[in-house]
C-alpha cells in the first residue's frame, strides 16, 4: 500500500475505535464510570477548558514542566560533558549514573514532597530528577561516539582542547543529545504529573481527583486528553528544534 493509503486506513482505524467506544459507552456502560467521546467533547468546552481555575492549573503545570526541563538539560549536559571528558571519569561515574537511573523514582516522591513542600518547588524538583538522567546518559554516549580520527585530525591542525570540543565533539553529539532531550521531555512530564497527582491540594492533581471522586468521567477524560495533546505538542517542538540543529549534516 502507498503511504497515503496507509495514512487513510490508520485514520479510519482510529475513527472506528472512537465509534466503537461511543457505541459501547451509550449502550452498555455505566454512566458514572465511562463516558462517550461525544459527551467528553461536550464537557471539554465550556465546563473544563472554560473554567479559569482549570486553565490556571494547566498553566502552572506547563511552567513547572518548562523550568524542570530547562534545569535537566543545563545540569544534565554539564554533568555529562564533565564526566565524559576523560576515560577514567566516564568509567568511574557512568555506572553510578546508570544505577541511579535504574531506581524507580516514584518511591522518592513522598520524600521530595516532604523536602520541597506542596508547592511548585516539589514538582519541579521531582520532574528535574526524572529528566536529568536521560540527558546525562545520552550526553556521555554522544561524546563517546565521536570518531577518534576527527579528533586527531583537529589536534594535528592545532585545535586547542576547547576548539576540539566546540567544533568536533559538540556537532557530533547532536543526534545522541536530542534523543536524550526527547526522552527527558517525556520523563520530566512524567515526574511533574506524578507529583501533581500525588499532591492533590491544587493544580491538575486536585481536578483529576475531584472529577474521579465525583464520578464525572467525561470531565476527567476531557482534562486528560487536553494534557495528552499538550504532551504530543511538546514532543513535536523538541523534534523541530532537533531538525534545526541537525542541518549541518546536509
Amino acid at each position: 500500500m502507498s503511504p497515503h493509503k496507509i495514512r487513510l486506513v490508520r485514520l479510519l482505524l482510529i475513527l472506528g475505535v472512537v465509534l466503537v467506544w461511543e457505541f459501547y459507552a451509550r449502550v452498555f456502560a455505566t454512566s458514572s464510570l465511562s463516558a462517550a467521546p461525544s459527551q467528553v467533547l461536550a464537557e471539554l468546552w465550556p465546563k473544563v477548558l472554560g473554567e479559569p481555575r482549570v486553565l490556571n492549573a494547566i498553566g502552572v503545570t506547563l511552567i513547572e514542566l518548562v523550568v524542570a526541563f530547562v534545569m535537566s538539560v543545563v545540569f544534565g549536559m554539564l554533568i555529562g560533558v564533565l564526566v565524559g571528558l576523560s576515560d577514567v571519569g566516564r568509567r568511574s561515574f557512568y555506572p553510578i549514573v546508570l544505577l541511579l537511573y535504574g531506581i524507580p523514582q516514584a518511591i522518592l516522591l513522598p520524600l521530595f514532597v516532604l523536602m520541597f513542600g506542596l508547592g511548585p518547588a516539589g514538582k519541579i524538583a521531582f520532574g528535574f530528577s526524572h529528566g536529568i538522567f536521560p540527558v546525562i546518559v545520552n550526553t556521555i554516549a554522544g561524546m563517546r561516539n565521536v570518531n577518534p580520527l576527527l579528533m586527531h585530525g583537529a589536534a594535528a591542525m592545532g585545535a586547542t582542547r576547547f576548539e576540539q570540543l566546540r567544533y568536533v565533539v559538540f556537532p557530533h553529539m547532536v543526534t545522541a543529545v536530542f534523543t536524550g532531550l526527547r526522552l527527558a521531555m517525556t520523563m520530566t512530564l512524567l515526574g511533574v504529573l506524578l507529583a501533581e497527582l500525588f499532591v492533590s491540594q491544587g493544580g491538575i492533581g486536585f481536578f483529576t481527583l475531584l472529577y474521579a471522586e465525583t464520578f464525572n468521567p467525561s470531565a476527567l477524560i476531557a482534562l486528560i486528553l487536553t494534557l495528552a495533546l499538550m504532551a504530543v505538542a511538546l514532543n513535536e517542538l523538541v523534534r523541530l528544534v532537533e531538525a534545526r540543529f541537525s542541518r549541518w549534516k546536509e
Partner: protein
Amino acid sequence: MIAQDKLVIRTIQFGMLAAMFGAWYIVTRSGGTLKLFLPAPELVWREMGVLVRSGQLWSALYVTVVSIIKAYAIAAIVGIAVGFAVARSRTLVHLFEPVLSGMFAVPLTMFFPLFVLFFGIGPDSKVAYGATYAFFPIALNTIAAFSNVDDLYLRASRAMGASGWQQFRYVYMPAALPVTLTGLRIGFFICIASVLGGETLAATAGVGRATALAAELMETAKLYAWISFVVCMSVMLNLLALAVETRSERE
C-alpha cells in the same frame, strides 16, 4: 595498565559512596531543623530492622511483588502476541507502529485516575496500570525485532523446504530474540516503576503505599528505611540484568 585503571576507578567509586555516607553522618550530628528531613543513618538502619522483624516489609512486599508479576505477565504475553501479529505484514507495521509509539510518548501517568476509577483502589488498578505501561516497549521492540529479520534468510529457508514452524523456530526466533529481550527488560523496569508509582499515588497496601504513609505521618526514619529497601532491590535487579546481558552477549 588496565588493572591500574580499574583500581583508580574502584577507588573513586567507593570514595564517593564513603563520602556520601560520611556527609550524611556528619550533617545529622550537627543537628538543626534538617533532622526532620534527614534522620541519622543508624536510626534508618534500626527502622529497617524493625520493618523486617515485625513482618511489615514482607506483607507490603508480597502485595507489590504479586502486582508486579501479574502486570508483567499480562504485558509480556499481550505485548509479544500483538507485536508478533503486527510484524507479520509490512502494511500492518506501517499502520500500527506509529500509533503505538505515539501513545507510548504520552505519559500514561495521566490516565492513572481512570485506572483507579475502573479497577478500584485495590491492587487491580496497579496491575492494569503497570501492564498497560509495560505493554508498549515490549510490543514496539517485538515489532522491530520481527520486522527486521533479513528477507534473504527467509527466502533461503523456504527454498530449502522449511515448514512454517521450522521457519519460526530456526530463523525468526534466533534473529528476533535479542531485540525482543531488550523490550522485555525495559518493560520489566517500567512495570516495577509504574506499580510502585501507582501504589504511592492511590492504594491500600504495598511498598509504595507504606512509603507514602510514612511521609504523611512524618516518620522520616521509616520513610528512609522503605526507600533504602527499594533502592537496594533496584540496584540488585539492575546488576542482575547487567550480568544476564553480558553473558548473552558473550555467547
